[in-house]
């Protein structure tokens, strides 16, 4: 019937999808036994010591269905310390921090791209690793940037940039002729944008989209990441329970929330996440 046809035609088969198909089809035939899902139940995916991807604390994707990336983003944004930067920076979350909370990375990437296309989310290349992308909600970004520009001479240009460029174009970087011809900015306006911090130099004739005054954030982040990784490395056997790490007193090097850093190191796969009977264990990955 339709079920068999759908199976035959789709080349990409998510295990959950096929599971649903099979359950629908066979529910009348096998009420007592669960033989058919056995054919597709991943036997190795018990939560044993081998499992790399730890049980996500915020919404289990295997139970729920497609991951709700927006809700996770909002949760992660609450971990960002606003007072530290005197409320001048919008809340920044890294794309790989989402991987620590959801097990299917491809779906997370897809949803992030959808949010970016809708214009709700902005992605930035923060400069310390080609894979480290920062995510900021567009409204946050606008309010903070305009608040900072208030009273300065560059306000007009920045407003023009935010209104013309950001809604339509979701690029991370802009080249000179794109700015001049497509968006009709003049050279002096581009200089003003760079001065205000909205654009950063990438190469001769091209610029990254950036967050003004984010230099301090990047510095604290890198310092904090090194310090938290150091804490994991110094532990016996290079491993520490996640709950223990959260309870530990952080040195003065770690200025951001330790949970923020923990999501970062798990998502960037700098530590391995192993499920144990006493909770999640983080083991340093030596590469």
């Amino acid at each position: 019937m339709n079920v068999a046809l759908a199976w035959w035609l789709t080349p990409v088969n998510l295990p959950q999808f096929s599971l649903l198909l099979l359950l629908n089809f066979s529910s009348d035939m096998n009420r007592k036994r669960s033989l058919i899902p056995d054919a597709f139940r991943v036997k190795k995916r018990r939560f044993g010591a081998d499992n790399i991807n730890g049980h996500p604390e915020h919404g289990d994707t295997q139970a729920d269905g497609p991951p709700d990336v927006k809700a996770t983003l909002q949760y992660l944004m609450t971990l960002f310390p606003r007072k530290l930067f005197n409320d001048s920076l919008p809340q920044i979350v890294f794309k790989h921090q989402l991987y620590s909370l959801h097990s299917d990375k491809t779906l997370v990437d897809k949803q992030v791209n959808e949010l970016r296309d809708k214009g709700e989310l902005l992605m930035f290349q923060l400069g310390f690793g080609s894979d480290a992308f920062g995510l900021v909600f567009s409204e946050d970004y606008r309010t903070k940037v305009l608040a900072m520009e208030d009273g300065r001479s560059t306000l007009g240009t920045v407003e023009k940039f935010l209104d013309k460029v950001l809604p339509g174009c979701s690029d991370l970087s802009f080249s000179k002729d794109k700015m001049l011809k497509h968006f009709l900015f003049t050279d002096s306006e581009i200089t003003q944008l760079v001065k205000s911090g909205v654009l950063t130099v990438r190469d001769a004739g091209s610029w990254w989209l950036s967050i003004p005054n984010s230099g301090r954030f990047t510095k604290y982040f890198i310092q904090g990441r090194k310090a938290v990784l150091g804490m994991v490395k110094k532990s016996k056997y290079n491993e520490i329970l996640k709950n223990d790490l959260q309870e530990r007193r952080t040195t003065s090097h770690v200025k951001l929330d330790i949970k923020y850093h923990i999501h970062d190191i798990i998502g960037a796969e700098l530590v391995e996440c192993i499920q144990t009977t006493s909770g999640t264990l983080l083991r340093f990955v030596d590469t």
Partner: protein
Amino acid sequence: MLSFITARQIGLDPPVRLRRAESARRVLSLELNHDREVERIHGNGINTIDIEVIEGRYMLSGGSDGVIVIYDLENNSRKLQYTCRAVCTVGRSSRHVHRFSVETVQWYPHDTGMFVSSSFDKTMKVWDTETLKPAEVFQFEGNVYCHHMSPIARKHSLIAVGTKDPKVQLCDLKSGSRIHILQGHRGEVLSVRWSPRYEHILATASADSRVRVWDVRRASGSLFTLDQQNGDQSKTSTETVNTAHDGRVNGLCFTHDGLYLLTTGTDDRMRLWNSSTGENTLVNYGKVVNESRKGVKLTVSQGCSPEFVFVPCGSSVMVYALHTGEMITTLRGHYNNVDCCEFHPDYQELYSGGKDCNILAWVPVLRGPDTEDEETAKVKAGASAAVNPAFEDAWSSDED
């Protein structure tokens, strides 16, 4: 399982569905088995293995000491415990053995009378399996990293060779000529692969971070280069624009139907590409550790319904689902780095070889008894001689 069989019986399902589901289930239960092992001949690490396509019976392996061994994989002994014996070897004592490590071996795709091996001694030898003497030797200027013969070619018999030289050489088996060159790469060519779908399409991966797809009939250069950003030039720094990876690309594998191409690179990433358009499908496998200076030999399962990728990573083999990118499991068993792995499509077994000189066979675990049969199985087991007769109680409580 029974409902699959019933559905196939009454014609609700196409027959291939049951086969694919069962193959996938077998792959998901791969494990090291006490009963199956491969005889240990190599004295130094194993760089490459190849299982012939015709019968799936003979396996070639090439080692770092230049030795080439042929194993018989078929179990004719009627016992469960089986060691795959070496049928013949091109050992260090042979006059024609390679002087340095053998990097790639491949059976001739149409029969097992011939195989080709290429090595760091800058030669590629075409061997006759009967006499174990090379019928043809191709000499090159630089180390030969890899070679590949098209598995489906009827109109040509070209071997694509990737060497230290940025030019990809095509050697013709029929005439012995090697004048056909593919130019375009700027670094050493670490991996070459013919498409299993079209006999003229070739993919090459190089240390200059680019993967090029060629049509060998076309004189004017590659068809396209794989771009990890799919043409979006804004995402990365200007040096990595139009590259497949942010480091050396050292592993290439086509899926069995030839529609997708997998590449791995030293930036610890693995990417899945649509092989006809060159588009990055953006499947995120996470960090696939890759520290190899030479090629990485990954392989894809065949005939299963979610296909699986087997990648050697360090001293284990990682198994990923092909289209969703999730990591299924890690196969641990080697004592040192794993260099190569090969999937046997008929039995859904995986053979992997590494620096610890072992070839390990990963065999699907047999299905246990069903829940309904468990009680009968238990009763049977209790009744049979599972108990050592020395512990059996001969004493009876009856008066008689």
